[in-house]
């Protein structure tokens, strides 16, 4: 069981990253945690090789290193399904939370929670990216790690919000399962800054999202940031079939819409459980009590494992119905990694392209058209 309050057990610092201000600041905050300066990451790989659960062990370590590639990238989405033209900022990799379904258990080369400390490069790259892409677009940090889970150590949210406040054409999203909102609350909000939470049925959050706060706490945090002046978003992803799923999702939608005014929700995404084939073994080994991988799956057009089409449709139609039944079409909904056919059947509209979805989600209310 991961205890994020005791994270990390040990810090590893790549030699070339020792002098960065962020390294110094993290070491100061974690002065009770042992640290080791290493020549390269291979040293850690050898250590993890001696663990029966390298992924679990990686979640207890913190690696401070430099981003050698690009910070900003288009979201890879998945082949053959419809994307939304989202852009990702790869600041931190992996996450001390331990969600059974998380694809990062297999997606990244190393399971170690990693913070890239050379943020000086980030701003240069972001400036250049936004110069080249002047249209309204969506960009965020929560793709390869939780946006806020390490925020008390990195203070990234403050810097990012301050930066994007000046770049109004971009909608900047911080995506989290945590309630680590202190820095967000201490920073001046802006119309183009969205604080987003991953939500799930209470039972799934409880059994499959180890280390993450209960959904009620996430909604309370959302309420607090709204009070501060931010807009929020929610991601029902992955939606999971389980005994009683219909009631479970009806309940969380009800709780969300009771607590959060629809006018403050920038968007809600829906995505059903999907994962690369090899992750099934990882989940079976690491979470032997979990039953989520024994539902009825097929191999999708992208080669990933996903629920058979009518089972996905049933999930989407129900949850969309719960949301729209309460607030109509006030909140933009979209699918993550779904086919045009699913869009058409559930939303009764088939987007022509990912660019159309991008403009649907990134324009201000009133200007939207799918």
């Amino acid at each position, binding site marked *: 069981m991961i205890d994020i309050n005791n994270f990390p057990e040990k810090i590893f610092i790549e030699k070339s990253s020792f002098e960065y201000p962020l390294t110094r600041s993290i070491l100061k905050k974690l002065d009770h945690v042992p640290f080791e300066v290493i020549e390269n990451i291979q040293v850690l790989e050898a250590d993890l*090789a*001696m663990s*029966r659960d390298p992924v679990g062990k990686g979640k207890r370590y913190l690696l401070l290193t430099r981003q050698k590639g690009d910070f900003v990238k288009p979201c890879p989405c998945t082949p053959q399904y419809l994307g939304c033209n989202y852009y990702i900022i790869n600041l931190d990799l992996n996450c001390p939370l331990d969600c059974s379904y998380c694809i990062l258990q297999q997606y990244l080369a190393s399971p170690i929670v990693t913070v890239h400390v050379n943020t000086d490069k980030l701003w240069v790259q972001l400036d250049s990216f936004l110069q080249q892409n002047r249209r309204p677009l969506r960009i965020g940090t929560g793709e390869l790690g939780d946006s806020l889970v390490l925020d008390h150590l990195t203070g990234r949210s403050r810097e990012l919000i301050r930066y994007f406040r000046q770049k109004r054409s971009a909608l900047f999203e911080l995506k989290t399962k945590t309630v680590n909102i202190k820095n967000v609350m201490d920073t001046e909000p802006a119309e183009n800054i969205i604080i987003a939470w991953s939500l799930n049925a209470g039972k799934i959050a409880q059994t499959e999202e180890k280390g993450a706060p209960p959904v009620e706490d996430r909604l309370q945090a959302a309420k607090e940031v709204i009070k501060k002046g931010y807009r929020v978003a929610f991601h029902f992803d992955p939606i999971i079939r389980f005994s009683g799923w219909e009631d479970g999702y009806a309940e969380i939608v009800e709780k969300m819409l009771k607590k959060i005014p629809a006018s403050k929700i920038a968007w809600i995404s829906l995505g059903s459980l999907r994962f690369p084939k090899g992750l099934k073994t990882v989940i079976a080994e690491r979470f032997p009590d979990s*039953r989520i991988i*024994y539902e009825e799956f097929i*191999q999708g057009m992208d080669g990933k494992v996903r629920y058979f*089409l009518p089972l996905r449709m049933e999930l989407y139609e129900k949850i969309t119905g719960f949301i729209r039944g309460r607030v109509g079409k006030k909140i933009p909904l979209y699918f993550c990694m779904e086919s045009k056919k699913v869009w058409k*059947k559930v939303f009764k509209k088939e987007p022509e392209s990912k660019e159309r979805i991008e403009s649907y989600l990134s324009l201000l209310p009133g200007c939207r058209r799918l």
Partner: protein
Amino acid sequence: MKFTNIDINEIDIKDDRFRISYFVSLEDLIESIKTAGLINPPVLSFRGERPVIVSGWRRVLACRKLSFKSIPVFISEEMDDLEAFKLAVYENISIRKYSIVEKAEVLKKIKGFGAGEEEIVRKYLPLLDIPPLLKYLDPYLKIAEFELELKKLIHSRNTDFNVLQLLAEFSPPERTLLLPYILPLGKNKQRALVTTIYELSRKEEMSAADILSLPDVGKISEDEKLSPLLKAERLCFLLEAKRNPVLNSWNNAFDKVLKGLNISSGIVVTPSAFFEKENISLNFSFKNREEFLKKLSELRKIADSKSFSGLFKHFSDD
């Protein structure tokens, strides 16, 4: 290492602490020894009063079959069991590749002789062509505990590692029940069947024994007209349908519509893989224009029939 001749009956063949392979054939070696003699002497080591075999089990057993009175051997200097076993492993690996069962046996014994996990992972897993990660050690240790008869079968059939890993999740009696269904199948189908039974048992919270005693499974196993291969294939099909009931019902519905359309055997109509796309594929071949037109005319008739729209039923926007 001392070279000497030894009375073959002095060798304690009941002590198999250093033995790696239990499932060996001696015929070819007997022929070789008959023709060329024992070229490569076995290695022995004293344990108490009697020497035991460190390396060269097949050679000693073949010479016994040939009723040799004495054979040339190397007697190793005094060394502990771990050192002696390492010698056996290195000598064998230089001549041949180990099967999965043999690798499992090597790892079990080397651990039993006191090698630490770190040494096993760093030194012996790569030596056995296994990735040097601790998480790969456990499945091999589980396979080493399989029943002797099962080990013999999987050794002789070179069974897939993934199948064995899953088999390790079942109890010994369940493995015995599963074997007759698994063995007749090819590697891919073996894996599919074991995976289906395992997942079905997890999903429905039934034991493999419960699944195999379901009435429709019983019908297959009791059908004397079916060969073991046909029984195994029928079981695969039946359990796959139980594992994926919705997909199975869609496939059946599609097939039913096709049947109702009475399409001639030269025309093949298939849905997209798992119905993910709305497209349906049509495939037919023809030798000349006349045959082509004949097929087109048949297709036209099919398209005009009332039941044709049934093919698209699942994709209808209504």
